[in-house]
């Protein structure tokens, strides 16, 4: 956090504010996996003196956080919206078991897809799993709601979702922090088998307990300070939540606004009274018509937005258009310069060879997804973290031999650890008749999200040394006999030669291109030198 407090005020991003809120709430541990726009939450928590660590993926992060909360301590799990898909399995069941220490899951949606593969609306998860959800509208609320979420979680014994979006995470607004108030109780374990062991006999009553708690919580949301009404005129009323609140307030300063700080469960009594108090009531929300559908299903007549505004972010101009019922084509801003692989990026060598060999490339999530753009255009699929290997195997299984032999799966080092390892196991378990080729582009960092560590770098979130996951040894132990590691830049031409041989072999082959990311190389040298100096002391 680069900003110092001036007269008790700080200028903080939403991510920094969540970290500050968690620290001031006495969080014992933050765990997550990097993902734009959520990444800086844990980095900041570590910088300002909290305990924060990267997990191999979001599922493990949430499971670690659950353990902390079972141990009667406060835990924060962080991830981007699609990360919650990975962590959905524990989410749905932790809703049943509940927690004793506060458990807050900060999840960052990316409407408009500034840096994501889809624009799923994670408010749906709150409903689906039965987990209460807070939605801040600026950094001050991100701070206040993080603290409130820990209190709520402990008070009700439930995990709590804190949904932020790109414009909350990466916008800076002024924050005033309050004195820290860590929980009074120390971590301890109390056995409670019927609550925490979700075998069917114990899970059935647990589900009923959850629904009962949610019904009680709804009554709290009706009168809680986070359901907030700004009274303007009676002509126009706006029901909104999160970042859309400030867009709406600016677009329609004359309107009355009902701001839903808790977007699940919804305070339908307050919503009904508000809708009845104005002549025209419009729901302004980004993404899916989640509020609109729920409010209408409760029999409250409100206007939603035309379907065209489901796509992309909202802003002041778009809210003005929604309020005016304007469905004319929106002006398209002039096309900016698209991103590209850095000049001298070691991934370039791999994509040149894949292009020149006419490969069918099943790709993955990271900087190297930019291999899809000219001058390479050497990527054919990109679905989700780790999908490169499974999708490549599926193609190999069904394509005619001549095409099948051209299929190559390409995955980055951090993504490989996240969810590529099980793909390698599948490759050995169900090998395609033509074999398969997997390329791990190992640049020694999680580059796309801003150079985070992962288990393959041998350093923790704070860049201190830890055990390094050995990709080659792992692959051999899985049963892949041909594992070749190449420095794609220092060994000119070696990658293309190896790729050609691998494609022709009909065997299961793993090629690892290992050379540090240009942006990370200097820092990696510093971390290594520091580690060496410590060892020699």
């Amino acid at each position, binding site marked *: 956090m680069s900003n110092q407090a001036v007269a008790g005020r700080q200028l903080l991003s939403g991510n920094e504010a969540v970290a500050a809120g968690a620290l001031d709430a006495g969080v014992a541990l933050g765990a997550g996996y990097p993902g734009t726009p959520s990444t800086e939450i844990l980095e900041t928590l570590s910088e300002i003196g909290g305990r924060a660590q990267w997990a191999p993926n979001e599922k493990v992060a949430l499971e670690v956080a659950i353990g902390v909360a079972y141990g009667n301590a406060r835990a924060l799990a962080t991830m981007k919206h699609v990360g919650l898909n990975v962590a959905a399995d524990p989410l749905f069941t932790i809703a049943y078991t509940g927690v004793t220490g506060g458990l807050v899951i900060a999840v960052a949606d990316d409407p408009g897809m500034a*840096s994501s593969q889809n624009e799923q609306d994670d408010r749906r998860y709150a409903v689906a799993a039965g987990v209460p959800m807070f939605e801040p509208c600026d950094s001050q609320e991100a701070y206040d709601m993080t603290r409130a979420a820990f209190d709520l979680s402990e008070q009700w014994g439930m995990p709590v979702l804190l949904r932020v979006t790109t*414009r909350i995470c990466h916008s800076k607004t002024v924050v005033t922090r309050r004195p820290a108030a860590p929980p009074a109780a120390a971590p301890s374990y109390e056995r409670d088998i019927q609550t925490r062991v979700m075998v069917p006999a114990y899970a059935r009553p647990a589900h009923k307990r959850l629904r009962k708690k949610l019904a009680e919580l709804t009554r709290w949301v009706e009168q809680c300070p986070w359901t907030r009404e700004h009274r303007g005129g009676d002509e126009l009323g706006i029901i909104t939540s999160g970042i859309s609140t400030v867009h709406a307030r*600016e677009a329609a300063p004359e309107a009355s606004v009902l701001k839903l700080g808790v977007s699940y469960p919804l305070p339908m009594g307050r919503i009904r009274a508000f809708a009845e108090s104005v002549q025209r009531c419009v729901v302004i929300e980004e993404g899916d018509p989640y509020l609109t559908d729920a409010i209408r299903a409760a029999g409250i007549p409100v206007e939603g937005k035309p379907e065209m505004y489901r796509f992309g972010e909202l802003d002041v101009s778009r809210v003005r258009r929604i309020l005016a019922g304007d469905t004319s084509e929106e002006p398209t801003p*002039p096309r900016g*310069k698209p*991103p590209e692989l850095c000049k001298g990026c070691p991934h370039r060598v791999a994509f040149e060879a894949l292009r020149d060999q006419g490969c069918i490339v099943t790709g993955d999530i990271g900087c190297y997804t930019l291999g899809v753009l000219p001058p390479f255009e050497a990527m054919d699929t990109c679905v989700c973290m780790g999908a490169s290997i499974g999708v490549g195997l599926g193609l190999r299984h069904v394509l005619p031999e001549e095409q099948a032999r051209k299929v190559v799966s390409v995955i980055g080092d951090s993504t490989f650890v996240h969810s590529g390892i099980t793909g390698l196991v599948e490759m050995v378990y169900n090998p395609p008749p033509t074999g398969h080729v997997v390329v791990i582009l190992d640049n020694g960092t999680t580059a*796309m999200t801003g150079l985070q560590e992962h288990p393959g770098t041998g350093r923790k979130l704070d860049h201190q040394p830890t055990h390094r996951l050995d990709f080659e040894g792992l692959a051999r132990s899985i049963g892949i006999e041909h594992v070749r590691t190449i420095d794609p830049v220092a060994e000119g031409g070696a990658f293309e030669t190896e790729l050609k041989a691998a494609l022709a072999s009909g065997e299961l082959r793993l090629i690892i291109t290992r050379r540090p990311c240009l942006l990370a190389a200097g820092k990696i040298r510093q971390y290594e030198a520091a580690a060496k100096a410590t060892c020699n002391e």
Partner: protein
Amino acid sequence: MSDQLTNVVVAGLGGQGVLKASDILAEAAFRAGLDVKKAEVHGMSQRGGSVTSDVRFGPDLSAASPMAPDGEADYLLVLAESQVDVARGRLREGGVLIGPDAVDVAALPNARSLNVALLGVLSGRIEIDEASWQAAIRAHLPEKLHEANAEAFRLGRAAAGA
């Protein structure tokens, strides 16, 4: 609100210091006692692609979006010539464009401090005191770059005739 609210958009290419410039501007306005909101997008856009960042400041921004609406920017700072046309639509009618040619790049102690030099040009036109600017520059840059950037800021300010 527009009479009390100042909207600045900074545009350029990834790696040019667009986000750094907007951080310094937001910090300077904050230190000058104003309410501030700043918006930017990280991630994909940073790999050499177009980058913009919005800074809004005034006495009270509690009911304001962090993003300046298109066509409402009072000032547009552009670090790359190629981005002038891309970003021009952000400016309001009568708004001020401060392009990369607003300062003599050859005179800068370091070409990478063009972002801070353009802030110097802007500083001559908005009411933020010099001490807040200097403190913001120091807060957002490593110490070894303080001198070069203070000089870049001064050159920008002089170029604006302030």
